[in-house]
């Protein structure tokens, strides 16, 4: 933590960056995102087990972008987020300074995104054990059982869109759920509409999800919607042997094709 704070202070003093997006102590024992703009505030940066939010979500938010040159405190899912956002032309390569936090909690001072790629080659985050078990359980269900499971699980959804807003990959200026000519997805919270919404979102995240779990964590009703995107990551890994956000050189799996694909319909 000291090395993180020292680095943050130095970056702000030298005016190398204007703002550091990190974690601060919040209310009632919570932590929350903090936007550090003066060297004196660097002391407020913290990192511990509570710091789970994927801060990468702020890299595409207008009022944050207006703060100037940014640095970001980045556990592994945030590193992957930075790489995907770079490939998808949302940020420019090496423009956001990445203050990495390794899987072992150590501070990693990356100079350029190529270093992140190197680190991620053998340090990628896995789904938490608890989620792995749930995904296994759901995958073992029959189609009918699975339909019923998701129908019941998604029923309480109030369509507050916290899952979408918390997701750094959901940066679309206009989400499909907001298109109404024609209307693809119902606006209101309704049983089938809720399923349509979450399945559509999962499809858009396939091959792009960094496994941060923020969609599920942000749900005020505790609906485990992250299991959907996690499962999509597993499917992509099994079929294409790729993981999202490990490199800025290749597009996300489902937005490209290879001429030597084993499926013949693509040729």
């Amino acid at each position, binding site marked *: 933590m000291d090395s993180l704070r020292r680095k943050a202070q130095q970056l702000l003093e030298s005016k190398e960056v204007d703002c550091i997006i990190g974690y601060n102590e*919040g*209310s*009632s024992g*919570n*932590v*929350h*995102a*903090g*936007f550090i703009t003066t060297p004196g505030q660097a002391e407020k940066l913290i990192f511990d087990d509570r710091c789970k*939010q994927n801060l990468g*979500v*702020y890299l595409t*938010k*207008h*009022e*944050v972008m207006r703060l100037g040159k940014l640095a970001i405190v980045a556990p592994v899912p945030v590193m992957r987020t930075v790489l995907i956002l770079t490939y998808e032309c949302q940020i420019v390569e090496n423009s956001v300074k990445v203050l990495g936090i390794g899987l072992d909690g150590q501070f990693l001072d990356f100079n350029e995104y190529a270093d992140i790629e190197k680190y991620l080659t053998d340090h990628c985050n896995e789904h938490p054990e608890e989620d792995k078990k749930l995904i296994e359980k759901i995958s073992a269900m029959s189609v009918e059982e699975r339909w019923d499971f998701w129908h019941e699980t998604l029923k309480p959804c*109030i*369509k*507050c*869109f*916290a899952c*979408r*807003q*918390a997701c750094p990959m959901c940066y679309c200026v206009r989400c499909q759920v*907001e298109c109404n000519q024609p209307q693809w997805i*119902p*606006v*209101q*919270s*309704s049983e089938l509409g809720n399923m349509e919404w979450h399945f559509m979102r999962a499809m858009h995240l396939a091959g792009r999800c960094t496994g941060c779990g*923020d969609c599920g*964590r*942000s*749900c*005020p*009703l*505790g609906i485990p919607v992250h299991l959907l995107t996690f499962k999509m990551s597993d499917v992509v890994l099994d079929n294409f042997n790729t993981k999202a956000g490990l490199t800025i050189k290749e597009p996300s799996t489902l937005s490209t094709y290879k001429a030597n694909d084993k499926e013949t319909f693509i040729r």
Partner: protein
Amino acid sequence: MSMEIKSIQKDSLDKLFNSLKSRGNLIYAPVKVKNEVQFDFVEKFEQITDDFIQTTQSVKNSVFPKIETLFKFVKTGKEVKMLDMDMSLIPEIVIWGIHPCDVWGFDSLRAIFTWDTHDMFFEKRMDKLTIIGMSCAKADDYCFCTSVNLGPGSTKGSDVLLTKTGNGDYIAELVSDKGKALATSMPDVFVQAVQSKKEDFLVVVEKRFDSESLIPKMQKKETFDSPFWVTNSLRCLGCGACAYVCPTCACFDIQDEGYGARNIRFRCWDSCGLKQFTIHTSGHNPREVQSQRWRQRLMHKFAYMPERNKVTGCVGCGKCSRACPVDMNIAEQLQEIDQKM
């Protein structure tokens, strides 16, 4: 209106439940679901719990449903026929064991839904409501009812307010005519009051700010223009969680849904926190960034509603702060405004 006080022995609470049920009321009460407590329609007294501080969602769904069908329209050939909703189908509901903050939420909703045009769906649903409130014996850091002129034992808005005493019996304050009539009709449940002081059984909720001093500050132009809003909302994600769990947030969208020839027009919840909320057909958005939307949320409750509707649009329940995925704590921010502006 003078308040009558009775008492209900702990063993007769189920009698009250069963009598209300046998009179054809639906009973909307707190029940335990997994690790949470939420309001739901219950069949049996045993399903109900009083062991909770706050439910995640408010009970506004009972008078302002997530989806309210306004009318139906049916197409036959070139003819379109409009069909009104049958208002007599709106059921009698007893809201059971609701905390005083949530109860007072109905008053804010009423102020909005009857401000100009009287909304008939809302009014009909309100008429059919009986509110049996329950004082708070527990609170947490997020509770700030005392900052908005309420308290853990506020009777405002309840028909009957129950307070659990040390031996498990309840003090029953008969607040409204409806509450008095209910008590008169069940003399074996509502018995002679015993000598106990309600205040002894209420939790103490610390006052975070004073709404009397805060409201004029919120109404100042300098507050509106203050950099406070940007600084304090940078982390806001712009979702609708706060608004949807809020007992007083009343914004809605109107939509049509077609099923071939049969169609409905309905209203559903909407939120000023969402970017799409204010977007014009032209594409221009008068609230183009999140700080403006966050400001709107607080201003609506603490500047505009006090001015137009003569009520505060916040009951201090703290549901929004608990539901927020990024720790936007409303009490903390209001306290800061009260201290600094």
